[in-house]
């Protein structure tokens, strides 16, 4: 009923005939479409980030037996907007001995890298910006950009605490990249393709056939490694307020700080979206009979559920110490990921 893809295709077809009839080269139309898609993506993601900030505050409040924001708008829905406006007005303080260029570009890179991953994620049936045939590899490559921005932020701040935080963060993300990538391989092997849209199509509208079941181990490893990738508790030592007073972004204020902050939430959404696509069937409904509910609703609800689980982790567990974190990645997750690949390969060979 609300299937956007047919509507969008119809609009595109209509515009194309209009362009051809008025003699403008079609390439301008494609360019326009790309710019339009980019703007829509940024708008949707910015709104999602705002929503997630509010949601985190509400979830944390209810877990802690209190209410959370209640006054700005009904149940505090306008709270994030208020906070954003406040951050916009703050003075942009740059430490005197900081490396100004690097200091400026660190949050920009963090922000841009967070958004670029969404080009290949299928939000619904036919709702993708670009269906690259190396989809998942592209996503993994882009999410590594955050390491650079963290190191830049830590270094440019000219602050011992920030540097320690940045380095720990970088070590953590790089370590957890390896089990993350390996756990993804299991799903790729089952689907036989790296394009995210085709992986979703291959899972079909039957929830018992989605890859979370045959890839239970892979899903678990992916989710744990993803929590570490986005620096969430129990892996949030780089931002541990109690120990190093906010770590790598301690010297940032105002809009630059807001960029780091929003980039964290967008990253959370990214890893949940990729998990949904690979293991929970993406935009597929769980049983064919429920296909009347639009596909993007399915995608959104599954992703938001995984984001909820990530937030649940944060407000329940204490945090790991940095060497325990590293031990966990290299000595526990990595061997498990290898075992997972081996078993998946065996399974694919036997059952195909």
């Amino acid at each position, binding site marked *: 009923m609300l299937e956007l893809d047919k509507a969008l295709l119809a609009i595109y077809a209509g515009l194309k005939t209009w362009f051809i009839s008025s003699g403008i080269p079609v390439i301008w139309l494609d360019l326009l479409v790309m710019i339009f898609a980019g703007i829509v993506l940024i708008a949707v993601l910015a709104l999602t980030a705002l929503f997630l900030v509010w949601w985190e505050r509400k979830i944390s409040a209810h877990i802690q037996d209190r209410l959370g924001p209640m006054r700005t708008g009904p149940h505090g829905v306008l709270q994030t907007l208020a906070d954003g406006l406040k951050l916009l007005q703050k003075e942009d303080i740059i430490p005197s001995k900081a490396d100004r260029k690097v200091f400026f570009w660190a949050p920009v890179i963090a922000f841009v890298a967070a958004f670029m991953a969404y080009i290949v994620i299928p939000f619904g049936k036919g709702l993708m910006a670009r269906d690259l045939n190396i989809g998942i590899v592209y996503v993994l490559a882009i999410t590594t950009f955050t390491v650079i921005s963290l190191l830049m932020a830590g270094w440019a701040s000219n602050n011992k605490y920030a540097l320690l935080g940045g380095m720990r963060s970088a070590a953590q993300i790089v370590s957890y990249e390896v089990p993350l990538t390996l756990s993804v391989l299991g799903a790729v092997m089952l689907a036989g393709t790296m394009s995210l849209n085709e992986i979703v199509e291959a899972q079909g509208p039957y929830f018992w056939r989605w890859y979370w079941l045959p890839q239970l181990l892979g899903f678990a490893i992916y989710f744990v490694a993803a929590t570490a990738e986005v620096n969430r508790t*129990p892996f949030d030592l780089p931002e541990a307020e*109690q120990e*190093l007073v906010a770590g790598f972004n301690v010297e940032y204020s105002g809009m630059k700080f807001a960029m780091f902050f929003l980039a964290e939430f967008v990253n959370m959404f990214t890893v949940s979206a990729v998990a949904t696509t690979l293991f929970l069937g993406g935009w597929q409904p769980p049983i064919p009979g429920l296909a009347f509910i639009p596909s993007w609703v399915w995608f959104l609800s599954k992703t938001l559920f995984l984001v909820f689980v990530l937030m649940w982790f944060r407000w329940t567990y204490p945090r790991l*110490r940095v060497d325990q974190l590293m031990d966990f990645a290299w000595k526990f997750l990595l061997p498990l990921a290898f075992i997972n690949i081996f078993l998946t390969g065996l399974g694919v060979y036997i059952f195909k």
Partner: protein
Amino acid sequence: MDRVLNNTELRDEEFLINMGPQHPSTHGVLRLVLKMEGEFIRDLVPHVGYLHRSIEKIAENRTYNQFMPYTDRIDYCASMPSNQAWAVAIEKLAGIEVPEKAEYLRVIMTELNRIASHLIYLGVMSLDLGAVTPFLYTFREREWILDLFEMTCGQRLTYHYIRIGGVSRDIPPEFGKSLKAFVADFRKKLDDYEAILTENPIFLGRTKNVGVLPLDVAKDCGASGPTIRGSNFAWDIRKAEPYSVYPKLNFTIPTGKVGDVWDRYIVRIQEMRQSCNLAEQALDGLPESDVIRAKLPAVLKPPAGEVFSRIEAPRGEMGYYVVSTGDKKPYRVKIRTASYGNLQVLAPISIGWKIGDLVAIFGSLDVILPEVDR
């Protein structure tokens, strides 16, 4: 040999880090100068004195009863035992006998305050380790205790309830029912807290075998209370040098096995359970009487002499050395607080650990800086 750490004596890979005085993790205003090598702590020097209020000098200019409200503020998280320490000291000096009902009321109040103080410890400790939620749960439980105190004496934090010779007011009739309901509910809540933390692998990883306190170091540095009981040493003033009506009440002293952070945590959890039992027993044994304070002259003038007394406060042993000249004001008051000894233990046991461990170790010592600085 001066113990100020400065940049001239560092080797290549070492650097100085300054934690505090404003820092989310030091409970109170404490400055720690750390000599770090990478993540490891090579040396630690605490700087205290930011909260020095010269309470001992003030005591020389107040009468004995006028000094009582100052004792509230020495350790405001455990205000009832702080009152009681002063009352016990002066009663020992002047030979005052406290009526039995007042003694039972003192036990109820100090045991409830022990629970409240340990709840603060629990919340702040798990907050330091990253688990934010138990902090709010423990403060929610503490609200009930504060309501009980407000019902009795009108105050939520600094009570001035225990006076020399007894207590200031009797408990209202609804106190008993509320206390029993609180104790029943609290035991279940303690099980909840244990479920979140005690067997959690992340918590165990952060606290097991971290910051082990050997018993001889503890005794030598003056540690007391749960800090020394974690090192497998059953020393409690309530059992060793009993005061008040503790000889008539039934309770055990929990101890740890190894002396690490986890042991000190478990000791405090079990002490909370024991305090529940004690408060209930004291309430049940409360005698029917109207006398809650001994008959004393309006201006108390204890006989000339000195006294040395101590009680078991939630953090350890708190005691007084008072010199009196027979005047209405004391000549010299020396306040010895539990955190003073417990903080001296920090430097020996945290050298060689990492900064993340330092937070856990410091949290486990349960130091309150106003006690140290007075």
